[in-house]
């Protein structure tokens, strides 16, 4: 049982014209087994929240706290956060030239498990994870995210989620750019990871579409750098009908 607690989180981003405040006091608590949807318009700060929790160097924390089971996440290096059990499926996964998917996955698994996985079981593990997400086996030899289509990148993110078995996962617009079939395949992957590891999920999305496949226990409306309304799944239906107009510009 794990708990990720975000308290009054304030974050600014460094730009050419100085620091710009993006997150203006975010409060959220995510426990193992729970799925929280964060829904908000473009530019409201959703990715900033995700990156800040994962430790991206571009963002400066100006106030508040993030803890995982009481441990200070903000004090950890990026890899320590992953080792503590956090995972971020990125909205824009990064290309790493010359590094094969297979080498990357094995290096990550070795780092997270503290020892190199046994070769024979590892090969099966990776093959099964790829099969489950309808990823072609030739992917293992390709360079990380290089030349991947939008959908392939997202499947690759969720494959990592299944292989690396974090405690809490943040999924940043994993649904964007997916056609209906890919959306279903990717969602099933998330649900498998939830069931297998009692995963806690922070599901960031712009649209309600993915919530038909991944059922949220809580829905938070995000606007202008903070949570402006919270409720159950029914809040998503309201957003579906009315959009974000009510929340923006306030």
């Amino acid at each position, binding site marked *: 049982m794990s708990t990720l607690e975000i308290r009054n989180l304030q974050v600014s981003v460094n730009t050419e014209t100085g620091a710009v405040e993006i997150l203006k006091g975010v409060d959220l608590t995510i426990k193992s087994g729970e799925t929280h949807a964060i829904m908000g318009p473009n530019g409201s700060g959703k990715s900033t929240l995700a990156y800040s929790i994962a*430790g991206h160097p571009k963002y400066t924390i100006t106030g508040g706290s993030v803890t995982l089971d009481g441990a200070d996440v903000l004090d950890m290096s990026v890899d320590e*956060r*992953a080792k503590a059990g956090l*995972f971020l499926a990125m909205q824009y996964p*990064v290309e790493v*030239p*010359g*590094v094969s998917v297979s080498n990357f996955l094995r*290096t990550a698994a070795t780092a997270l498990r503290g020892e190199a996985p046994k070769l024979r079981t590892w090969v099966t593990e990776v093959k099964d994870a790829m099969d489950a997400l309808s990823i072609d086996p030739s992917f293992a030899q390709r360079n990380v995210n290089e030349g991947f289509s939008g959908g392939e990148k997202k499947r690759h993110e969720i494959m990592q989620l299944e292989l690396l078995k974090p405690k809490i996962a943040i999924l940043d617009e994993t649904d964007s750019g997916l056609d209906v079939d890919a959306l279903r395949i990717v969602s099933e992957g998330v649900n498998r990871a939830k069931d297998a590891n009692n995963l806690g999920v922070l599901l960031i999305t712009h649209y309600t579409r993915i919530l038909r496949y991944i059922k949220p226990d809580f829905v938070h409306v995000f606007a202008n750098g903070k949570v402006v309304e919270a409720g159950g799944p029914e809040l998503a239906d309201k957003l579906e009908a009315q959009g974000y107009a009510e929340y923006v510009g306030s």
Partner: protein
Amino acid sequence: MSVLTTNILVPHGREESWRFTPLNRLKGLHDGSAAIAEHRSLSMHSEVTPGVSFERISRELLPSLSTTDDAVMNRVREFSLDVAVLKIAANTEVSSPIHLSRKTFDLNAAEFSRVLIHVGSNARATVILANTGDTLLAEEIEFKVESGAHLTFVTLQEWDSKTVHVGKHHAIVDKDAMFKSITVTIGGSVVRLLPTVEFTGPGADAELIGVYFATAGQFFEHRIFVDHCVPNAKSRVNFKGALSGDKAHTVWIGDVFIRANAEGTDTYELNRNLLLTDGARADSVPNLEIETGEIVGAGHASTTGRFDDEQLFYLMSRGISVEDARRLVVRGFFAEIITEIADSEIQDRLMQRIDDELVKAGA
């Protein structure tokens, strides 16, 4: 052992072609003050197969095939004991790579070495020259790639830390022939290589690729010259370098000359450098001179940058430590070139050396 006495012009460092080279570290290779070594370090390790021969020929019997105004190369021509000749007869297809090596541990005298690699018409071969140990070496390798032949030449500078190596690798590529070189420079104190290409027939093709990795105090220079002096020839140049540590210095010069008669030329050259720490310096000078507009294409690009934060973040967000993430990125950076070497044992050995250098440099 004799001491060089000669009236060949001595470079002073102000000459365009010497302006980056630390002459005071050349141990007298350039000014005649080096003692001449008696040994011949080049040897062949592959079995002799039909159509392949390796022998030494008196230099009087074998004048150089090209002209040079390089002071060190002129000394090589004057003082080499003989010429090592690797010959692949016309129409011979050599299926596995021919392995040559130099392994020397003599820093008191300089070896002046002339080599000719001659590939007859329509022959095909890969030659891999691995250099290890420590030495003072001035070398001229000429390649004669006859019409329709294909030669891949891999040269591995895996020297220890004290080597001074000045070399010219000059390819003469005839009609419809293909010359590909892969140059790897990861060891030595001063390495200055001049990979040059001269086309002698239309439809000739040259691809010069390479990697270099300089750590604290090392100076590695690659000065490329491709002379498009015939119509419809193609050239590609792609060198990637990484630097780490105080006073690591690399120089990459890419001179491409498209002469007035070289219609239909297709050329592109690229140099990318990765600066892993402060205090290192990468000079990169692409230079394209064009005398005719009737060409297929001509371009160049040069970039010098640091680690990509986004790449490191992505890898680290999967639990990979910063050291391992950097190692992966550097390996990945070099992989594009290293994987072109048709020998997986050599690929692994080079990647291991790159890892070791990275650890030593503490980047």
